[in-house]
């Protein structure tokens, strides 16, 4: 029983990270129906930004309390990552908005590979650790062990998701986003600045991924190719939940977190987890192509 709770906790922690990244996929898809295959690598870049900023801040200003360093690093990382995403959108995707849809998807794949290999060429393949922002404190509560880091990850993710949900549902920006996603052609006639809304969406998606990146880096090592696996898993999360649907991405993230944690519990080895995740995806796509919370789009003849 304690073992189970322990695993659920782990799944929640991992699921939160997947959900945060999945949000970026889903938001971009929702607004310009582009599978932004570069998003996983944007996430990877964000962890490196966090690594360099965090290290720099800590080495210069040792006297600041951990929480301040953490927040400073997070803000800087969010900003830098958002900037990167906006630049990518501006220079790689925007010229292709009128082109056939595949062109943009291929470009996204290319941008992703570029980021990976560029990072590899400049920084090298060795895995790295983020600096420690807090001392790790482990609590035990009726046999279940959990750390302050775990609590931070789950709590921060929950807050971010709630915030995003509110932004999309209640603010003008959110309304404009929904308008663009509903009808790209009418929205500008209603005075919605489409280009700016698209940029904001990319920026928002990337900064959320950056939060995910920092949280992830507090627990695991980072390397230039991490964006592939984590990116794919987050992407599956988005599709499983129903791509284009924000709550679906959150749901999908947690489902995939559970898949990853519980696969080795049920099957002989953890190496089966990719198999399980992608089979889940395949089966779902065949029987419910629009994901759990997604809706089919009608075809007019």
């Amino acid at each position: 029983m304690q073992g189970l709770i322990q695993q659920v906790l782990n799944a929640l922690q991992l699921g939160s990270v997947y959900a945060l990244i999945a949000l970026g996929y889903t938001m971009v898809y929702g607004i310009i129906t582009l599978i932004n295959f570069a998003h996983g690598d944007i996430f990877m870049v964000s962890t490196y930004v966090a690594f360099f900023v965090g290290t720099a801040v800590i080495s210069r200003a040792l006297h600041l309390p951990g929480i301040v360093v953490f927040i400073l690093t997070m803000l800087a990382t969010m900003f830098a990552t958002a900037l990167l995403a906006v630049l990518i959108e501006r220079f790689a995707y925007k010229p292709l908005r009128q082109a056939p849809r595949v062109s943009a998807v291929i470009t996204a794949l290319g941008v992703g590979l570029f980021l990976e290999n560029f990072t590899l060429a400049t920084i090298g393949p060795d895995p790295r650790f983020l600096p420690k922002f807090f001392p790790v404190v482990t609590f035990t509560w009726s046999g279940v062990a959990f750390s302050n880091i775990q609590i931070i990850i789950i709590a921060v993710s929950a807050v971010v998701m709630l915030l995003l949900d509110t932004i999309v549902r209640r603010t003008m920006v959110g309304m404009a986003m929904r308008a663009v996603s509903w009808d790209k052609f009418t929205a500008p006639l209603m005075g919605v600045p489409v280009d700016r809304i698209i940029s904001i969406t990319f920026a928002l998606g990337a900064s959320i991924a950056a939060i995910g990146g920092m949280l992830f880096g507090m627990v695991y090592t980072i390397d230039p190719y991490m964006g592939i696996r984590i990116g794919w898993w987050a992407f599956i999360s988005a599709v499983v939940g129903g791509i284009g649907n924000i709550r679906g991405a959150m749901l999908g993230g947690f489902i995939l977190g559970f898949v990853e944690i519980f696969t080795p519990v049920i099957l002989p080895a953890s190496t089966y987890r990719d198999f399980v995740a992608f089979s889940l995806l395949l089966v779902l796509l065949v029987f419910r192509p629009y994901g759990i919370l997604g809706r089919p789009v009608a075809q007019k003849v």
Partner: protein
Amino acid sequence: MNALRAFWNRVRLFYESWPPLLRRLFVPALLVLFFILALVLPQAGVLNLYQQQVLIYVGINIILAASLNLVNGYMGEFSVGHAGFMAVGAYVASILTVWAFPRWGLGEYIPYLFPVALLLGGAAAGLTGLVVAFPSFRTRGDYLAIVTLAWNMIVKSVLENIDAIGGPRGFMGMQKLTTVAWVYVWVVVTIYLLRNLVYSNYGRGILSIREDEIASSLVSVDTRKVKITTFVVASFFAGIAGGLFAHIIQFINPRSFSILKSTDVLVMVYLGGIGSLGGSILGATVYTVLLELLRPLQVWRWVVGPLLLVLLMIFRPRGIMGMREWRFLVPREERSQAIASIKEHIRRKREAAAPVPVGGSSD
């Protein structure tokens, strides 16, 4: 650029001044000549091992690009899992030459049985093409792309989990059976068969799905049959390419067939141009040779491919040859001259019969 075009036009005029029989024999003669060269040059030591290897990779990549072009270029779907089919072909062919043939007492005939191993590998890959074909009945576009991607990942994951064939460590023991001559033959066969398919009713069915799937089914195209055909044929040739690949590097592991490999093939297809076999030949050649030339750049050369892809999509999304075809790849009976003579024949028949009231007769 203009000088090049002018030069090309002169070559063409010269060629067209030849007597018809000579022209008809020209391409086959050239193909035979190349075959002899492919056979002789490596033997005679004119091509060193490295050069042979590059040529072999060019050939394998042509097969991969041309077959993927069938799906992505001609049918207009977006498959990102071609390496998955390649993997099936590679493993099946390798298992046959390394385990099965020796066990069946055919050890000494392996070099002769190599084509059989390749064909069986191709057949196995073609069969798995159905895994993607069936979902394509219901989903397309982005969702089908995700299906192909999932397929690629599943193949890789399955291979990693089968210990008998080496799991993540990979599979080895293959003889170096892939030679320049073999690859050349397979390239010619692949391009020939694909070309014939493309210029048939089925090929037009494939194209019509790209253009407008609903209109296509409303002019009697059985889109399911066409999709099955396309995916099975494309994955068959990917399997062949996989078999050839396994028997040149003599060591395969699941990572050789990751999504990165699929992306490489995508680059070749879109670089050369969609809907053009000539384009795929060109794209595969240029890309493979380019990567070889960039070898001194080490890690940085992996930055070039993706960058090239992005720039290509932005500035020349149709690739070098987008939807145009080399003349010699167009069947003779489909060329303008042949069409014109049929039209002439019809015109004469019509003039012999009654005049037509409507439809602004064309004379």
